[in-house]
């Protein structure tokens, strides 16, 4: 739905592209795609089949948003026993067949993903940028440095000075350090930077005596049990 939030930019994009299937905003449906954009994580066998089908029909597959790129908040479920989770929500009806669920997976844990548009929510500018690049046949450049870089550039005070466990040092930039700029710690919605052991914000890590592994263990809200590198 964040796509609808793109406002008139989407009208420009629609000028260069023909949206053939968009279940949330349109009624028409179609079959082959140059670019398929997938939102959401995979939790049901049905999702998986659909994903294989779309992968088969799509030249380029883009994972959109944290659920698709890193499994998102839904991955919290993986920390529990699934039968127990069902009982917790549906009580004695937990065994009804339509309540079947399995471990939450990011899209690239099921099919090959060509590009990722990170975040929950995604950054509109990044979305339009990536789509424009793909339209022009170019490879989009996604930041490979941590949130701290953007945070410092904005002159924010570091939240570690205020006893907040901010994950900025190991999380991929590109959001203009939105949360620390609002006085709230980064909780990692854009996923880890590539190879956090190498690319993490060393200055911040040293200053506050942090360890990359410890920070990773604090990455519980988004993509818990996320693989360390996600490219």
């Amino acid at each position, binding site marked *: 739905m964040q796509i609808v939030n793109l406002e008139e930019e989407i009208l420009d994009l629609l000028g260069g592209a023909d949206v053939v299937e968009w279940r949330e905003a349109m*009624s028409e449906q179609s079959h082959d795609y140059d670019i398929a954009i997938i939102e959401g994580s995979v939790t049901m066998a049905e999702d998986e089949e659909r994903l294989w089908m779309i992968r088969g029909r799509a030249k380029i597959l883009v994972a959109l948003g944290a659920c698709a790129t890193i499994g998102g908040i839904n991955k919290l479920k993986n920390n529990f026993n699934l039968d127990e989770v*069902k009982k917790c*929500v549906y009580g004695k009806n937990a065994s009804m067949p339509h309540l079947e669920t399995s471990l939450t997976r990011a899209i690239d844990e099921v099919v090959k993903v060509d590009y990722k548009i990170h975040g929950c929510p995604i950054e509109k500018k990044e979305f339009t940028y990536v789509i424009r690049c793909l339209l022009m046949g170019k490879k989009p450049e996604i930041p490979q440095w941590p949130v701290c870089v953007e945070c410092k550039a904005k002159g924010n005070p570091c939240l570690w000075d205020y006893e907040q466990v901010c994950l900025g040092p190991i999380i991929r930039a590109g959001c203009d350090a939105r949360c620390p700029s609002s006085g709230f710690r980064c909780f990692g919605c854009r996923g880890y930077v590539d190879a956090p052991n190498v690319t993490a914000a060393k200055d911040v890590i040293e200053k506050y005596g942090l360890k990359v592994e410890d920070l990773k263990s604090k990455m519980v809200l988004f993509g818990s049990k996320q693989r360390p590198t996600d490219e």
Partner: protein
Amino acid sequence: MSKNININVHHVTRVEGHGNIVVNAKNGKIEKVQWQVPEAPRFFEAMVRGRSYEDIQLIVSRICGICSITHSFAATKAVEAAMGITVSQQADAIRRLLHYSEQLQSHVLHIGYLAAPDFFAAPSVVPLVAKAPDAVKTIIRAHRAANAWSELIGGRTTHPVTIKPGGFTKIPTEKEFRQLQETLKETLKDLGTIAGVVLSVAGNIPKFQRDTEYVSLKQTNPSAYTFYHGDIVSNDSKGKTTPVKDWHKVTNEYVVAQSTAKWAKWHRDAYAVGALARFNNNAELLTDGAKRVAKMFSLEKLCCNPFMNTVAQLAEAVHVVETSIQMIDELLTKGLKTENVKTTPKAGKGAGCVEAPRGILFHEYEFDKKGNCVAADICIPTNQNHANIQKDFEKFVPEIIDQGEDAVRLKMEMLVRSYDPCISCSTHMLNVQFVK
């Protein structure tokens, strides 16, 4: 005219998520009418266990991308109720302002992008760009203004990061509030334009009626058209309100075979929530501008045409903007104060209730003495409407069955959309094909 109808629309488009409508009719006799909701179970209630009271709003705001602010508030109010945390008058006012921004955003989205195409008989907003370009531009401007408003106070357009138990992490400056107020004055004009456009196609709103129960919040002392404070009321509760902590007595949720989402009932076998429910319970408290919009469409209290929910949303959109313009004056007259909120966790259980754009929403949590969540219970408005949609179908379909398969299909989809459901699902798909 075809009397044998077999419709199986999978994944109703233009609502967030999955929903199926099934109609089977032989020789004009309806064998089966069903509103199926095969939504992926989301298990948020299980997932928040073990998480700190300070993180709950972050997690549950992800239940929905359209009403994330509402979920954040329901959760935060529940946390505050559980731990006896108080909120200053200033923070309370700014919260309501932030909440209004989501009402506007969601209502404009629904009216403009999801419902208007039905009224214009267009399959989506995309061809509408050619049909009514100025109307689409106005809708976009109003929607963008609402999003910028959410971002200003919430830190992001959706999934706010400034809300915390006890208040805010950061509030806008006086200058930013003034600018917002100026934008809202323009938005008010845009809403007038949009109302005019919708009025021009109002003849396409079906005349269907079905008497039902309407459930919403009601605020007395001081009385106000409320989205945020108050107790629970309905047209069946004879003026008596139910305190939020007793919300289970209202929702009486049950599991049905045709849906993963739980259904709800109170005094009757189904009830409706949303803009029309709020309007039906509180219409006299709307601002003058909002009342004028209702009048334009002859929308009156205790209207029982579900298709008029969209008109009620239009009136509410005007209401929240007019109210906010005034609230900003009041806030700035008092002068903004910086508040440093510190809270200490304690064990307890509490419920929080706010009106989502699409209806009343309940959250309830229990915490241990460290402030970690041990149990959660959430009841979303879309689920509360499911039984009512099913009842509408059972009355509506026989009335229109002679109009042929296409008309029946379209009108049933329109009916579902008029409730503005947001049935979030796990894998939404959005596929774009490019013409080179």
